[in-house]
């Protein structure tokens, strides 16, 4: 007799079961990350408490968490829209940069005044991000070029393009040669609240979530996106123009990510600078997965990620842990989440087998 296990398909678990696997994935990731902390000579329990205290224990902490969550919500939504159609936009990072460049260009050179400045910056960011992603959309829709590769590679181009601008033509003439653009005029800045860095970009993010929810769940466009995502052949058979839809959805996804670039430069940094996004566009992929591509889910997960980023900063200060720890933790969560997916669809069953079978 030998003992072996067999993989069996199981019913799609209940919503509760699926939520539980998500929570379990996060807990297991916390547990494994604990060993990393131990290896660094830090008590994990103390560190986790410190993260929570730092991120939620004060008005400042909460405001910082919301500030970090803002670009995550917007890019998470951007990515999830495309994911619903089984289109993998890995290029939100580059689209943030392009959005930021668009907004900055308007802020620095348009000379517009208060009521028009911000809308113009918003529109420029929206179009710049959308245009950037539509390159991948066109290639995919017209010639079946894999959008994963194109969007990913275009990230590097976008980041270097932004660098070129701030090291070159857009560099602040009065900036002692630092790679920064000039500070934006007040008309090009979003409102800030409570004497903190919390800015109205957060409310733009919430508004985006509502818009994406309505688009996906209530409109005939969202219906087509879901139908194409579920079965492109059936969608084509039913008369949907799948190529056009792929192009438009990638463009929309990029445009939404562009809004995140606008929100960052107009709300937070008030200039274009190197390292504008510390990988929000990549974190967005994790967020969209964790959120199961739902708009409300994106908000919740983004807030959790915000806590992690703010708390992670405090780990740096208190224990001199590298910032890489926060990213390692994100990676672990995604890893266990994907493993969790497997257990949603399958179960392992131990079976006894005759040795002479």
């Amino acid at each position: 007799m030998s003992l072996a296990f067999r993989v069996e398909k199981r019913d799609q678990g209940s919503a509760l079961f699926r939520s539980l696997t998500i929570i379990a994935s996060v807990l297991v990731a916390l547990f494994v990350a604990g060993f990393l902390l131990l290896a660094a000579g830090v008590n994990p329990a103390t560190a986790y408490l410190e993260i929570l205290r730092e991120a939620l224990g004060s008005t400042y902490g909460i405001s910082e968490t919301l500030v970090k969550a803002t670009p995550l919500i917007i890019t998470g939504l951007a990515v999830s829209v495309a994911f619903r159609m089984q289109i993998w936009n890995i290029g939100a990072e580059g689209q943030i940069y392009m959005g930021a460049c668009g907004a900055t260009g308007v802020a620095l050179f348009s000379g517009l005044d208060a009521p028009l400045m911000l809308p113009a910056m918003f529109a420029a960011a929206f179009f710049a991000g959308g245009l950037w992603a539509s390159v991948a959309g066109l290639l995919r829709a017209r010639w079946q070029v894999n959008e994963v590769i194109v969007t990913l590679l275009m990230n590097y181009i976008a980041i270097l393009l932004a660098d070129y601008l701030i090291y070159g033509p857009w560099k602040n003439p009065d900036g002692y040669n630092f790679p920064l653009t000039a500070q934006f005029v007040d008309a090009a800045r979003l409102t800030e609240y409570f004497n903190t860095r919390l800015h109205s970009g957060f409310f733009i993010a919430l508004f985006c979530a509502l818009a994406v929810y309505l688009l996906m769940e209530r409109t005939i466009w969202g219906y087509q996106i879901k139908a194409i995502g579920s079965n492109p052949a059936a969608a084509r058979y039913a008369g949907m123009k799948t190529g056009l839809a792929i192009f438009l959805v990638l463009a929309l996804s990029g445009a939404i990510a562009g809004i995140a670039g606008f929100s960052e430069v107009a709300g937070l940094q008030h200039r274009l600078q190197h390292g504008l996004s510390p990988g929000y566009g990549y974190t967005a992929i994790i967020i969209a997965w964790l959120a199961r591509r739902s708009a409300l889910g994106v908000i919740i997960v983004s807030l959790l990620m915000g806590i992690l980023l703010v708390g992670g900063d405090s780990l740096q200060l208190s224990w001199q842990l590298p910032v890489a720890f926060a990213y390692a933790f994100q990676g672990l969560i995604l890893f266990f989440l994907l493993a969790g997916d497997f257990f949603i669809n399958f179960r392992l069953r131990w079976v006894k087998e005759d040795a002479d079978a």
Partner: protein
Amino acid sequence: MPKLLQLQHIRKTFPGVVALDDVSFSIAEGEIHTLLGENGAGKSTLMNVLTGFYAPDSGSLLLDGQPVRFSSPRDSLALGIGMVHQHFMLVAAHSVLENILVALQGVPLFFPRRQLRSRIEQTIAEFGIELELDTPVWQLSIGAQQWIELIKLLMRDCRLLILDEPTAVLTPQEADKLFQVLQRLKQQGKSIIFISHKMREVMEISDRVTILKKGSSVTTLEAGEFNQNKLATLMIGGDRIPEWQKSLPFSDELVLEIENLAVRNDRGLADLDNFNLQLKKGEILGIAGIAGNGQKALAEALTGLTKVESGRVLANGEDITRSCARSSYIAGIAHIPEDRKAIGIAPDLSLDENLILKNFRAKRFRHGVFQSRSAIRNNAIEKVDQFAIKAGPQGSPVRLLSGGNIQKVIIARELSEQPTVLVALYPTRGLDIGSAEYVHKVIAEGAGNGMSTILISEDLDELYKICDRIAVIFRGRLIGYADPTSSSREEIGLMMSGEVSA
């Protein structure tokens, strides 16, 4: 006769479904044993248990009286159990010989090609099969490809051959040839499990018949104990069969005329070549032909899924091949596709959403760009009731429904906009008798209301039963029309192999 294989109290469950429940039957040496059952009765699951794809939850398999346990198809093949699947496992670019060699066991690294070749040729000659060993597989007809699968099993000295609906891809003449071969194999002491829906074949060839119904074996009958009616009754059990009347005589008004239509496939080969067809109002026109002779291209050209190379399609006398009117006319053509799960449904969307897949833009389902949820729900309630769809919990993905119910969802959707023309590809393939009768009823009722149907089927019985005329297609050309009331099966069979042109 000694028992070759016994299945005892086999039970196999899948999440939420009992696929097989206490199934027992046995196969004697030198016996042709037919497995009969509606779709979903558990035939495929049972065969998958037999060939080692699935392990049963409980129950036992006895081979020559010894208990055996398969953990993969390799194990069952090693013990001489082989299967010809409905979808062939062949490498299209390779020759017949190469495809057979791949299946051989215990071939040395530097294999004696000439010796193996003569062995294969011997087997082919022994059964009087016509097969050229050096032809690449893609050039062969589907029927010839099936021979390769069979020869693969013979070369491996399989004692038990399982054939899953082998005649689906054959002309009546080819089927007769297959039956001769099977009879010879039986005389050699081989055992055969034969799966089919076609009653006539079952009557012709079976020594014993086991009927499966809803996952359990109803009964096993010896030859002489059964006739077609008895088998059908046992298969359906107490299920209600919808009643319908064959449609009234159709009018002479032409709704659709196809002239010299040519369609090429991805490889640039002609799927349809100089094809002509005339469809009259209220007519049910059957298209008979062996699978792969251009039926799919015809359906796709009519429904706008494939580019037309040359030729014309006239609707009510107006050329719509390339005009702008085409797309709007196509919108009026309902299409029941061949592969319903692959292109008929969006599997992750709900029943409600799938029912509006084609007409989601209709005014009644939306307010501006927003979908009207209540209208979509009411539409679903209406269709579920009208087409007797067994729907799951509201909002659950449509892929969880059974094949028959998915087919009903597609039919309900396609007929909901009162089409003038219905193009149906194998609409009853894989359906249980109740559902299949239901589909026939819907088509006949549609014809009564003036809808014209092009019914593409490989089942001559079905075509005889429901069609007003039968057109025969061979290698992308129309061979001729036959009248189901006067033409014999043999005449149509000959036309299907392209030999006679009427």
